[in-house]
């Protein structure tokens, strides 16, 4: 998962992140960080066996956690319903309707981006 962690000024001095990494079986990657004595934000990517426990720990320590979800969006004006993207989607999130309109189900999408790169009209995009 990817998420923004919000640090309030009262906790910026605590060693929360290093405690997190030491105590939980997770893999953890900091993608962006902007933290000053006045508080701030950090964008992280996290996975692994104890992700859920890790999230609980962060919340207990006073960090506000806002998960971000990748959504796939198709520009209907650009899309020509060629279906080139259909067979590339690993989770079958792209399927044709009865009239061969190519529909994308963003609930199934895992944000892999295969469709984006292979769309001949650059109509389909994954955004956060």
């Amino acid at each position: 998962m990817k998420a923004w962690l919000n640090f309030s000024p009262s906790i910026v001095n605590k060693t929360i992140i290093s405690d997190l990494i030491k105590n939980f079986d997770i893999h953890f990657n900091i993608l962006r960080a902007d933290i000053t004595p006045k508080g701030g934000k950090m964008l992280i990517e996290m996975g692994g066996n104890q992700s859920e426990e890790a999230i609980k720990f962060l919340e207990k320590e006073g960090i506000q956690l806002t998960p971000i979800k990748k959504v796939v969006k198709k520009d209907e004006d650009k899309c020509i319903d060629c279906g080139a993207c259909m067979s590339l989607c690993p989770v079958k999130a792209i399927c044709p309707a009865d009239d061969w309109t190519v529909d994308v189900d963003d609930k199934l999408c895992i944000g892999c981006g295969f469709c984006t790169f292979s769309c001949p009209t650059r109509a389909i995009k994954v955004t956060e």
Partner: protein
Amino acid sequence: MKTVEEINQRIKDGDAVVVTAAEMTRLVKENGLKETAKEVDVVTTGTFGAMCSSGAFLNFGHSDPPIKMSRTYLNGVEAYSGIAAVDAYLGATQPNRNPDVGLEHGGAHVIEDLIRGDEMELVAEAYGTDCYPLTEIKTQISLDSVNQAIMVNPRNCYQNYAAATNSTDETLYTYMGTLLPKMGNVSYSSAGELSPLLNDPYFQTIGNGTRIFLCGAEGYVIGEGTQYATDVERKNGVPVSTAGTLMLKGDMKDMDPDYVRGATMPKYGPTLYVGAGIPIPILNEELASRTAISDEEIACQIIDYGIPRRSRPMVMETNYHELKKGVIELDGVEVPTSPLSSQKKAIKIAEELKNWIDQGEFFLTQPIKKLPTKGRTVKPLEIQRPSILVKDLKSEVLILARPTDDISEVARKMVQNSINHLPVVDENNKLLGIVTSWDIANAVAHGKRKLTDVMTKKVIIAREEEPVDVIARRIDKNKISGLPIIDKDNTVKGMVTAEDISRLMGGD
């Protein structure tokens, strides 16, 4: 039974019965051939696919002072201008000359932009003559400002086209779209039962001069397309693979941007999606039965694009009914399929053309001259330099390493023989991995002692039967400097390096 004149009279009177090719298939099934042949006057077809062999003739008009353009660029895309002074032909697959744009906005995109009515930059260069003194021009043009913008597509509407898959371990980017490794997907490009030339497989009605729907405008068949072939295997009357093609022409000033689209096949290049629809007059029962053909009756071969040779091996033969289901069974595995040409737009085009005829706005034509029905095959291009195979490379003494070899031992071997790559093999000389001098340096730097810790196990290889040009491309694509030569049994036969290849290519 009927004549084109009679049908045109009925169109004029508003009495003509017009159906799409998909509807025709159903009608004949339900009401029988005899009845339907009597009832139906016209069947409309449609296709909206990537047709690389497309382009446009443009006449820009004369400037003052005048110029004889020898190079022209439209928004950075070169159009061929070795035709008179201010004419040019813009090909759909031409990439942009700006390397940052490259394949993303090429000839096909400029054609679409023109049809949309966009203004664009024209840059022209010339050598200057007494009658055409100007040597440079930079100005803005649009569809309205040019004298003519005529789409002339040398090869459209392939009668049938093989579907593509990829047996190799790497993703391939082709004009048939992205092909996933290990036959991970299949892409096909024909509209099947809606496709124009599959509904008139012997060219009984479609010929030189046939009036058609082209990108939302009235267009014409102006002859056989390039790579036209007749002597092909058929099933149920229709070719099982590529056969007939058409050369099409239409006025871009009348076209609708909804039915034409510039596109880029990833890492392949620009191509134009062309919307074409052809009406077929139902003059007799035979034509009725031809147009009643269903997806199930149209065979399609699936071909392995993993083999980059002129004739690629067939994996299996199937039909469009199966392909359109979205998954197909290949060697016992369910593999997803992609149409590549828009089935939705193909239906829309057939419907639109039907509408034009229903409204009395479009009349049918008789061909001025029939298209050839026999004696045409597609000849290959023989190249001067016969393609050299990997096994023809003269191989130096083969130096190999064993997984148990000590790093310092391997380093010495490399220095002694002044080589940079060493295949690692088992006792039967079967390939296990490869080490480069860089791997060795890295091992030494990190105090590693065992070869198996530093060798690359996923090795990019060259097979003995592969042409050297294919290997050159592989070296380039993977940014590597050499690769082991392997026979059928995975035994290492030698090494081929980037230097060997450049020596070979520069040498003759």
